[in-house]
């Protein structure tokens, strides 16, 4: 097990290294010149040249990349071109908000998704099932921007139950977490439904029924624990899904997370910030996948760690 974990960690580090390389090269190939973005429209050619020189943008690609990696290993992600602040500080000030939102969204999607999935599986092919599956279809397809605005309008503006965007209290968290969790809820309800249906067909379920156990007991003690296993392994992978979702949701609700930071940096070609946010999200995704793989054998011994 230990050597397996070690190997997976090493693999993850290599993947992250690859991501830094690809992102760096892509940003380098971008026709937009960061020096010109910093210099603004009134700058003379000398000013632009001077900025490019100071930032080392004249160096060959591999020198720039090598310098970036060297600094990164020492924990220095550089300073934002535009804000001039340390990238690590910018990210650190925003990461807690994003993590909180992500955690709340996972809870939300599991609560909604699993409940719907269980009910649909138990009422398979009946009107309830069809209605719930249409709901899950809608929640998967609907753009998060639209859902976010809709929730805001109904629950914050019309009903006044929640604040109109912002950050700080539990009430601020509810609508963004719902919006972000909504998409996952659709997926989870479908997975839970099919997983439940499969388990319900198993021999041990029939045996339990033959033993004379009550239906509730069969479902709670025998079906659910087995049906839920493949779902838990999915949560880690979800983190990747959320990384793209939070950019939209954070911007709708004014949630001060790293999605908001990334969006602004991309607009202004603020390369150190783009690199930093990409690194943090990539790390989250890689760790999420790693976690999913490590947890899987623990909950299902049939999966071997090789």
């Amino acid at each position: 097990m230990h050597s397996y974990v070690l190997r997976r960690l090493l693999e993850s580090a290599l993947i992250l290294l690859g991501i830094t390389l690809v992102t760096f090269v892509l940003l380098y190939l971008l026709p937009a010149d960061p020096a010109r973005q910093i210099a603004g429209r009134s700058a003379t050619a000398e000013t632009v040249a001077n900025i490019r020189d100071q930032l080392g943008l004249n160096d060959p690609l591999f020198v720039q990349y090598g310098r970036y990696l060297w600094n990164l290993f020492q924990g220095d992600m550089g300073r934002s071109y535009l804000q001039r602040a340390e990238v690590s500080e910018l990210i650190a000030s925003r990461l807690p908000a994003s993590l909180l939102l992500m955690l709340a969204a996972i809870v939300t999607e599991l609560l909604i998704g699993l409940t719907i999935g269980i009910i649909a599986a138990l009422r398979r092919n009946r009107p309830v099932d069809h209605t719930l599956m249409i709901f899950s279809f809608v929640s998967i397809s609907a753009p998060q921007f639209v859902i976010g605005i809709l929730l805001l309008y109904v629950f914050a503006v019309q009903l006044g139950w929640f604040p109109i965007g912002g950050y700080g209290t539990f009430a601020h968290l509810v609508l963004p977490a719902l919006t972000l969790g909504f998409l996952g809820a659709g997926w989870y309800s479908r997975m839970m439904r099919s997983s439940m249906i499969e388990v319900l067909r198993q021999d041990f379920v029939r045996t339990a029924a033959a033993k004379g156990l009550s239906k509730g007991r069969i479902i709670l003690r025998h079906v659910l624990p087995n049906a839920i296993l493949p779902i838990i392994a999915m949560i880690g992978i979800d983190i990747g899904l959320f990384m793209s979702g939070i950019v939209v949701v954070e911007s709708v609700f004014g949630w001060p997370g790293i999605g908001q930071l990334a969006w602004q940096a991309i607009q202004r070609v603020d390369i150190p910030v783009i690199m930093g946010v990409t690194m943090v999200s990539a790390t989250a995704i890689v760790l999420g996948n790693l976690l999913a793989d490590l947890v899987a054998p623990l909950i299902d011994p049939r999966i071997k760690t090789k």
Partner: protein
Amino acid sequence: MRKLLLTGASTLALCAFPALAQVDEDAPQGGSMIVTYKDDVATLDPAIGYDWQNWSMIKSLFDGLMGYEPGTTTLRNELAASYDISGDGLVHTFTLKDGISFHNGREITAADVKYSLERVTNPETRSPGAGFFGMIDGFDTWNAGEGEGLSGIEVVNDKTVRITLSRPDATFGHVMALNFASIVPKEAVDEKGEDFGRDPVGSGAFTLAEWTPGQRLVFERFDGYHRAGVPKLDQVTFEIGLEPTVALLRLQQGQADVPGDGIPPAQFLQVMNDPAQADNVIEGGQLHTGYITLNTEMAPFDNLDVRKAVNMAVNKDRIVRIINGRAVPANQPLPPTMPGYAEDYEGYPFDPEGARQMLADAGFPDGFTTELYVMNVDPNPRIAQAIQQDLSEIGITVEIRNLAQANVIAAGGEKDQAPMIWSGGMAWIADFPDPSNFYGPILGCAGAVPGGWNWSWYCNEALDARAAEADAMTGPENAEAREAAWRQIYLDVMADAPWVPVFNEQRFTLTSDAIAGDASLFVDPVHIPVNYDYIYSTEAE
């Protein structure tokens, strides 16, 4: 809806006028307001901040020697008690007001002026505004990283600073009113280093009390401000991270006073058709022109008749309708609120028939195929489609290149890449209200260089010489002649038709009932979206 038209013509003299009674001096002090923004503030360092969002915030946190009468484009003395210009226009002497101090309590002296101007022009500061100070003697060596500061700036005594220029420049007063010329305390900059932009210390009407990244900034009244009775509000809170659509909802619920990003395009008609909301909208001009550049170095736009034909083919009224009438059609580079605007100039008529004929006479009876570069954010692609349609009427086939802003700017900076660019989203908004500001970088030879902003690559050396002559006409007695000279320069530019001026955007500022002030303060040409210093709360007593 209240409408406001600014008159700029007589407002250009370099010396300060007495207050124009635009501002309600007796307005009560107290209260607060909430301004919303989508994007977080990049920086509040006056040497670095250069976007429309932080521009007016910095104006409220810092002061320069010069400033503007609220709601106007009229220069006035700010930290300077007096401002004298020598007869040859080269020596500019400023005397500081008595008893003025920074937010940290230290008195402002002439040495601070020298320090601040040398900081912004120091290449290590990497200021986007350094180029504005090119007329100060010694700029070239200092900005190249040599020497010991700006030799043109001399501290005469604690209260007096003398600035010598290498060439007479009538815009120098405006340059001293730019944010880049704000006076900053050396000790605070030294202490905070690169983080000065997060923790600014100036001498403006407000101090920064709180900045929580991605959430809010809070400005509080600076009690030691050098103008008595200013600012009116005790506190201005900027709520960050709110989509314009969400900001509008907040305003309607009374949870915000000014949506800083304006009325979202999708909701514009809805707001304007609702009398209750439309009453709270103030419309005003903007120092902005949206235009199509025609690359004079690329065939067939190297042919003057082709450029004229394109000018005659574009239906500007229709484009204005596309953006719900949020602009007025333009026929020249300068916007109507800018001194030097030629009111009696009629421009190229909209005449597709004549344009087709002109194109045929120029040797293109069957038209040609070309490319139009455009920034990929609404409404610009829709405007590009309208242009495409107009030009197809005269036989020109236009392929639209929809790109991110930075990529369009990069394409424009290459001599042979973009035959046509629609400037929307990157259009010129004046840095200061002077006609010269629309020339150099975007129409002069200096901008027609790789990486420059003169995307039509128009370089007319005779006009460049006349522009330099006009800027050498300093002093209030020459103001009128100078304005006339600039007016003629732009008319001569139009004779060469390197641009199709399309429209001048209007500003529509929506506010809550809780704040008030002269209408001009809500469409202040220098402070966007509103002049934070002079607006007052209706709840204050």
